[in-house]
Structures are given as C-alpha cells and as structure tokens.
C-alpha cells in the first residue's frame, strides 16, 4: 500500500469510520470540511510520526500541511526526503 493509500485508509477508519474509499477524495478539505477536528489533527500527526518515523516540528503544525490527503502525502514525502 503506498503512502497515499495508507493515509487515506487511516482517515477513513478513524474519522469517517468506513472502508468505503469513495467517501473521501484526495483533495477533500479535512479540517475546513469538518472531517478532522483540532484534536483529530493531533491523532493524525501521531499516526504519521509513528508510521513514517518522522518528527513534526511545532512550526510545521499548520493547516496547510494537513488539510487534504494530497497535502499530507506531499508533506510526508518532503519530511522523508529531508
């Protein structure tokens, strides 16, 4: 499973409580769309840190990095390359 699918699967199971991949588009707004709330973002970051062995710095905790599957995937890719 590639990272995009892994991230999608986590969000589907943990925030939408479904396996139906069609329930979430890659560019769907997670925070602005009310799918992930403020504490949900912390759950998401914990998952990414554990799954991809990365560390998200406080200054990186901004909505732009986490508001869609596309944005999260790109952010994780940058962190893993760094």
């Amino acid at each position, binding site marked *: 499973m590639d990272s995009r699918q892994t991230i999608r699967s986590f969000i589907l*199971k*943990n925030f*939408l*409580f*479904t*396996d139906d991949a069609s329930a979430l588009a890659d560019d769907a707004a997670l*925070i*602005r769309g*009310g799918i992930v*709330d*403020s*504490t*949900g*973002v*912390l*759950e998401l970051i914990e998952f990414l840190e554990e799954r991809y062995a990365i560390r998200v710095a*406080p200054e990186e*905790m*901004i*909505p732009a990095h986490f*508001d869609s599957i596309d944005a999260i995937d790109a952010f994780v890719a940058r962190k893993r390359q760094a």
Partner: protein
Amino acid sequence: MCGIAGFLGHGDGTMPPRMLLERMIGTLRHRGPDGFGYHEGDGIGLAHARLSIIDLATGDQPIHNPDRSVWTVFNGEIFNYVELRDTLVAQGHVFYTQSDTEVIVHLYDRYGDAFVDHLNGQFAIALWDARRRRLVLARDRTGIRPLFHARARGRTWFASEPRALHAVLPECAELDPRGVAQALSYWACVDPDTVYRGVRSLPPGHVLAIEHDGRETLRRYWDWTFPARGSPTPYASAEQAAGALRELLVDAVRLQLRADVPVGAYLSGGLDSSGLVAIIRRFTDAPVRTFSLAFEDAEFDESAQQQAMVRHLGTDHSTLRVSSRDIGTAFPTFVRHAGSPVLRTAGAPLMLLAGMVREQGYKVVLTGEGADEVFGGYDLFKEAKVRRFWARQPESRFRPLLLGRLYGYLARSPVQHAAFAQSFFGQGMQHAASPVFAHVPRWTTSQRALQFLSADWRDAVSGFDPVADYESTLPDAIATWSPIARDQYVEAKTLLAGYLLAAQGDRVAMAASIEGRVPYLDHRLVEFASRLPPQWKIHGLTEKYLLRKALADLLPAEIATRTKQPYRAPDSASFFVDGVPLDYVAEQFSPERLREAGCFDPAAAGRLFDKCRAGRATGFADNQAFVGILSTMLLEAGLRDARRAAA
C-alpha cells in the same frame, strides 16, 4: 419535590382509572418515596408521589380549594408561599394546610391561569378545574422541573417523566429518530419535542390549558428577554449594580432555604457554589452542610479548591471520590433516569453524589447551577466574543491569538496549536450575524454522532438542519439584542433547560430522592442580570464580572478570581478496563444488538468502539459520539422492556 401523573378524558375503558394512575405513579416512586395520593373524578385522574419537605404533617397531595372544585398535584417548591399565603389570608382566603401547594388553588381561584405569574419557585403543576372541566398544566420559568404530556387512546396524559407515560402507553415507548438527532446535536431536544414518539415536553415558562372537549391553549407567560443593544444601563456604576445583585442573591438564598427538613449545599470549588455557601454562612442562621465530588483522574479533580472553601467557611463537609470504573458501572442507571441520550458521562457522578447526600439524611441541596447562563460564565461566550472580534477583521494575524486565553484546563486543548485553533474556530464565520453563531462549533462537534446513524434512520432525519431548524424557533426580538444576550438565550434554551437542569439536574438528583434547588435561577435574578450591559457580564475576557464583584468580600481571593473550570468527568475511558469493555458495553455495541435496535450502522459504530477500546479516542467528537450511541442503545433496550411490561 415529587412526581406527578394523570390524565384527562374517559378513554377506552379497558382499564380502571385507579389502576392506570397506580401504574403511572408507581414508575415515579423514586421522585416521591414518602407516599402516594390520588384524586379521581368524572374523566379526570391525578396521582402524586410525595417527597415530604414542607408541611410534613398535612401537606399530602392532591390539595383542593375550599369548595373542592379545584384540585392540584404539584412537583417542586413555591418559595414565596409564606408571603403569598399572608396576602391571600388578608384577602379572605381560608387554608386547611400549612403547605406551599395550597397557595396554588387559591391563586387559581383569584387569578385564573395567571396564577403562575405570582409564583417564585421551581414547579410542574397539574390543576383540575371541575367547574369548567379543564386541566391546566404549568411549568416553571427556566425549566427546573419537568412535565411531559401525550394524547392517545381518547385521553390527554401527563407525567413528570416519560417512563410514567410508557407504563400505560406502549405506543409511546419508541424512539423518534428526529428527536434523537436533536438530542445528539444540541445535547437535548428542543421543547416541545422529545426523543419519544407522541410525547411532548411542556416548554418552560408555559401554561397549557386543555378543555373537556380536547381543545388546547398553550400560553407563554415568561421568557428570557434582554434589552435592545445600546439601551441605557439601569445602574450608575458597576459597584452600585453589584450591591443590588448582592441583595437579590441573599434574598434568593434566604427563600430557597425554606424547608421543614435540613438543607445542604453542593460545593464544586468554583465561584458559583462557593458564593452560595458563603452567603448561607454570612447571612442566615442555617447550619451549613456541604457535599462535593472528587475524581481519581487529576484532569477532572477540583478537590484542592473545594478544601480551600471548606477551610475558609468551616463547613461540615463530605466528599465522594469517584473513579472511571464507578462511572462506567453507574452509567446504565444514569441513562435510565436521564430518559434521553446523553453526550457526556458527567451526570453519573452527580447521581452517585445525590445517593451519598441521601444516605447522610438530607433531602434538599442548593446548587450553583444557572450562574454561568445568567451572568455570562461559559467559555463558549468568551470564545464567541473572540471570534466576533476576529470576524470584523478576518485578515488579522493578532486577533485570533486571543483564542489562546481559552480552554487552559483541558489536557488536550483545542487551542494548543494556534494555527489549528484558528482553522477550527474560524469555521462558521459566515454565521457571524446569526443568533446561533456561538453554538455552531459545539453543534459541529456533537453532530459527529449523526454519521453513525443507520441508513433507515438517516432517511428518517433527512432534512434536519441543526442551524436553520434552531433559528426558526427564536423570537424576532433576538436580532436587536447584544451578541452575548443572544448567546445566553440559546444557551438557556438548549443546554441549560434541556440537559443541565434535566438529565444532569432533576433526574440524577431525583434518582436518589434528592431535591436540588438553584438560587441563581430565581427569576428576579435572571431579570436583573438580563438588563446588565454586556461588559458587566464578560469584562475583557473575565467571565461573570459583576457576580465576582458582588461576592468578592465573601470568598478567598483564589476562588473569587479563579477562571471557570467547567464540571466534566472521564468519558469513553470509563467503559474499558485495560482495553476490555464492561460487559453491557460489549453487548450494546455487538453487531447483533446494533442490528436489532436499528438506530446505528453496526460497522461504523464498531469502528468507533475499537478506537475507544484502543484508547485512541482523545477528542470531544469521538467521545461524545461514543457516549451518545451507548446511551441511545441503553434507552432503546429499556423501551423494549417497557413495551413488554405495558402490553
């Protein structure tokens, strides 16, 4: 405090009236364990379960007027009954008891349905006028005491709790999906709606008259109301207003200490309850006996502040220490008494506390409930103030930083990370002019529970729009009020009346046959506070500014200046021990049971269950959804039993 039940109409005659009354009132024994009383007439039945507090010797109900043409059963207290009685006696009325109940029938004789205007109290009243053959139901101004009614089988039925209706009307012992959707969104149904099919709640501040031919007249006799923005303040200075507030509050406490049994008080460690106890100490001769809750989980515990007040006032004090396990174990009983889905467990510890109070020989306690709504105490009000300030300059980088001043007491604060907080609280800015602007973030969070509804229930609630539906219930004048007044109104009508005074108030106290009294909801205080300018409620970001001023010299500085910490208890963590669910929790979340009930999607609810079991549910939304589903399932199971018993 008591339970009432009864009916108007001849019905289908399948069961003798007395048997119906006994069935109904038998379900309310916890509200009045000291004895039952009945009145039966042509097409009328009244029943009463008594908790003896005033006039222990002759106060049994039903009570009648001198010519026995007006009868009443009543749940609650008329605190100004002494003054009312004196006035009525001077006018020539003759009484046969010393009870507060008897003033009701005399006031009705004199003023008709306007009798309620004279009452200072917390009450749910059923009154039968045999001459005009009409039943009058009335409920106190702010919704402290409950009253439900239904029309079925050729009769109008009423009762203090829906379970009494279910005992004789099994067709009403069914969940109504739209009512449940309301409860899961607003934390409670919006009166007159309930979660039960065909059951209505009499809204606070209303009188419902039902004539012998079934015609109904619903009249609002009181409502929370506020002056138009910019109205002149009735006081020259905050000091002068604080003095007037102090006088009113002392008088409210004095009236609410009236009882022929000893009265205790809850002490949470916050400003509101501490202020009440300090007033009892300073201004009355009543002995002060206090009770409080402590939590094993330090995040929720306020023991240090409670002990500071106990030392300061020298009260005779008892503390009940509650663990997560205690909450999980007590939860099914709590839900049975709440009679509604709940989104938090916080009522369960209060039910346990009421049990301790009762064991210690007390029947009555004063509580600090209502002060936050009346004087502007909630974070929600401050949050809305910051968001409105921000909405005026949405591009400002500095205005949203004020959000960081909120929610400091939360282990996982929604403002912990400024950028996310701004993103989260920035939602709903398009509603800035709406009267429900302050409540949109809360309702957005609680609505998470609706995504777990089954396909059938989703169909049944399609078209439910929490914001638009609620806005349609609001008075036109609200547009002219200050923003905080709008927030107070919505809060008073949703969380206060629907949940805090009900599932977390009346029902959990009554579960242990305890009467809670709420001096801050004396209507004179509510009307006084409503006229205050907004800056005397929230001054900058200091909540309850004027109340703090009025109580400052009675309290230690650490209490008088302490930022409000809302009362909370552990939620989903209460239902698992080392990842193992309590037996009843596993049962209610089993796919078989979820399918049987039909309310929720078993797969989705199962995933939430797994998340909570793994300890990964850390936010409000997941926790509230879990508690909402569990409580709905427990209610549904209870209704199955009720239908079987009534069949």
